[in-house]
């Protein structure tokens, strides 16, 4: 069983690297679907490993829900949003694709260092690989948020961060369904965020003629005539 877990983890890492290097939005969403399914399977394998095949009904239910949301619902919403705005590629990323892939490799190294340095004592070497994957996924998600401009890639960044948080939760918790309440909450947030993003994307697209978040900074508050102080002064 430990082999299976490690295989899944390796696949997750691969999907992270792939997503950092992909320039087509459709393939990016496909990779994320794959990653979502893999990530939601990992705790299940851990569960088998720890409880020797005896899983409660509550666990099955919550993992099923996870799988459905991550594997079906979220990709579906993302594809819908993509179809609506007729956008195919992420053009002009802030950090290029090759550099991003390289950064992904760097994240793996950094996560290994962090896992080795800080969590050695807590984990007794048991789930170190899991922890490395978790931190890598988390930081790669953050990296996507910083390095891409399109609103849809931002959402995917959040999604990847959520996957990371989920893995981190699996690492630190004993595998029972009550421990996944927090992760489940985060997942629901992401789900709602993606649904809203579908609407917002459409609006940004029609208002700004594109879905570049860079254009949104014309909404900010730096105009001195409209500052808080002037508003308070009347």
């Amino acid at each position, binding site marked *: 069983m430990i082999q299976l877990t490690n295989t899944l983890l390796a696949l997750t890492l691969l999907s992270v690297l792939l997503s950092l290097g992909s320039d087509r939005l459709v393939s990016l969403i496909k990779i994320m679907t794959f990653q979502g399914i893999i990530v939601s399977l990992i705790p299940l394998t851990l569960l088998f490993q720890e409880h020797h095949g005896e899983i409660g009904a509550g666990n099955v239910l919550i993992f099923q829900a996870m799988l459905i949301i991550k594997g079906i619902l979220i990709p579906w919403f993302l594809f819908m949003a993509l179809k609506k705005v007729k956008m195919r590629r992420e053009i002009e990323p*802030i950090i290029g694709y090759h550099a991003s892939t390289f950064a992904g490799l760097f994240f793996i190294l950094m996560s290994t260092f*962090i896992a080795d340095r*800080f969590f050695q004592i807590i984990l007794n070497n048991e789930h170190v690989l899991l922890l490395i994957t978790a931190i890598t996924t988390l930081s790669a998600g*953050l990296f996507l*948020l*910083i*390095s891409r*401009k399109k609103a849809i890639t*931002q959402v995917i960044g959040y999604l990847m961060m959520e996957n990371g948080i989920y893995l981190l939760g699996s690492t630190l918790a004993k595998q029972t369904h009550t421990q996944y309440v927090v992760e489940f909450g985060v997942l629901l947030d992401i789900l709602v965020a993606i649904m809203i993003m579908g609407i917002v994307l459409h609006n940004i697209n029609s208002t700004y003629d594109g879905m570049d*978040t*860079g254009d*949104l*900074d*014309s*909404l*900010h*508050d*730096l105009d001195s005539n409209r*500052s808080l*102080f002037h508003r*308070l002064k*009347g």
Partner: protein
Amino acid sequence: MDTVFVSIFIILAGGTAALFLSSRFVLMQRIMVGATTLGSIAGLHFALTHLLDDGPVATATFAWLHIFDLSFTADSISLFFLLPIFLIPPLALIYSLHYFTDSKKNLRVAVNYFFTAVLIASMPLVVTASNMISFALSWEIMSIASFFLVLFDYQNEEKRKAGYLYLIFVQGGAMFLFAAFALIYRHTGSFDFSAVSSMPDSGKLLVFILALIGFGSKAGLFPLHIWMPSTYSAAPSHLPGIMSGVMAKMGIYGILRIYLLLDAPTSVFGNVVLICGILTGIFGVVYALVRQNIKELLAYSSMENIGIILIGLGIGMLGADEGNQAMAFFGFAGALLHLFNHSVFKSLLFMGAGAIEQQTGTNSIEDLGGLLKKMPVTGKTFLVGSTAISGLPPFAGFISEFLIYYGAFQGVDTHRLSFLLAIFAIISLAVIGGLATAVFTKVMGLTFLGAARTKKVEQAKEVKPSMQWVMILLASVCLFIGLVPAPFIHTAFAGLRDISFVSSYNAQSFLTVVQQISETTMLFVLLILALVMLRQFLYLNKRIRWAGTWGCGFTKPTVRMQYTGASYADDMVNFFKWLTPVTRLYSGITQIFPRRATWHMQSEDTALMNYERALVRPLYSLVYKLRWIQHGNIQLYISYIIVAVIILLVFFL
């Protein structure tokens, strides 16, 4: 305790029902008023029976979030504070039946009712909370609910600003409170109020000062009062009655409670409270004198009354510190009774101001005039309220101020600082009372007497019956307390039962004094009635001719030949100009046949000016230098988060 929770539940249910019934305007109003009245009667019954029976202290505890306990205790002080909480709000809501008449604004009114219910429901929790968690929780609910009440006219920018200012002060005050609680927790390791007294004496003073600032910002202590005028004029008119009459008293409750909990190791507490009270009272009444807007003026007058209540508390604390039981007893009792009275006559006055605003569309006394003939009930009840708030017999204010004076005079035979402070308190009470009379003769005279200054005022009519009846009821309560003070004084005494160092004091001898006061005022009232009857009798069968007010023999008098608010107050303002800077703009008369001349007086709130000079401007220029951080680029914002996380990981893990 269960009764209180049931009544809170009923009130909240009424508020929630209002949200769902917003499309049926009249039904919504009636359900809200009915539920609040029902709940309040239950609450009042609980408070009165427990206050007058010498029964055991009621408590209740609930577990919350597995870690915390929410516990509530109703000792005699809490019970006394429950009285205004359950007395004023239902009356204010009955008044709102005809005050909110625009059924197009139904959703807004529904939301307003909901938050009113939340506010009313949170206040009993504040006064009964017996640990810091439950206190902080109910305190915050109360503050937030009242903030939404101020935002009723959210489309009006002036009123929105008033709401924000209020929020800043309320939450700023809460921050100080939390700091005080955190200090207590650090020393005692317990959230329970009963553990507070076990903290070391060295920390107590700091805790008390922090709490005084926190509670003072709610009560309107000088210089934390600047939110009051704008807030009270922004909220719909029945609400300032609740906010000033009841909610501001929660600040007083907090000061009294924290004082009792800390078990006062030094006399500094009493001195600080007394001096704060004196400053608040005098500044409040002087500011009230220069204001021309009735609601703002009433707000400053609330500040003055908070000052009087604090003077009472301060005298009580001085007495407790000196071991002078009589002084402590009457100081505290006077403060409690004045607080109750103030909630009655202040809500009466705010309702009067609301009635005037509803009929004339303005609250500026420079535009009003001659309303007594057009709105007789409003005018007469406002007169009663004004007399009561000025502390004149035969109304409520006189009795409570008499108690405070009595307490202060008990302190005259002590020595040193306490003696000086007691004398000082007596003098300032006299100054405050005198000036308050001036303030309210100004309001009464210019608003209700004379002749109307604008067309709109000329056409004013009496308000609808539900508003009239509430005002009549409150005015008769004022008169009743003045005529038969004994039961009310007795109730205030009962409120002191659980304050350990005065509970043994026997006030029987004072009750005979009260009896004499009561008889004298009765005689006084009878005398007046007799004179009125005599006048009626003498005028019988005589021809009575009516002429314009302030006619003074002119052939063509105009309404502009009347005293104005500015000219009435001018002399007194001159005397106090070191407290409140006044600018006068006078165009002057130069020719023999003068053209139009203008004279304008404007006064600033010194506290407000100094806040702007010393706090807002430096803060703003500092913040402005950091504006580049907020550039609108979301990618960089996320980078900030990452940098922060990395710094935390590197330095703190």
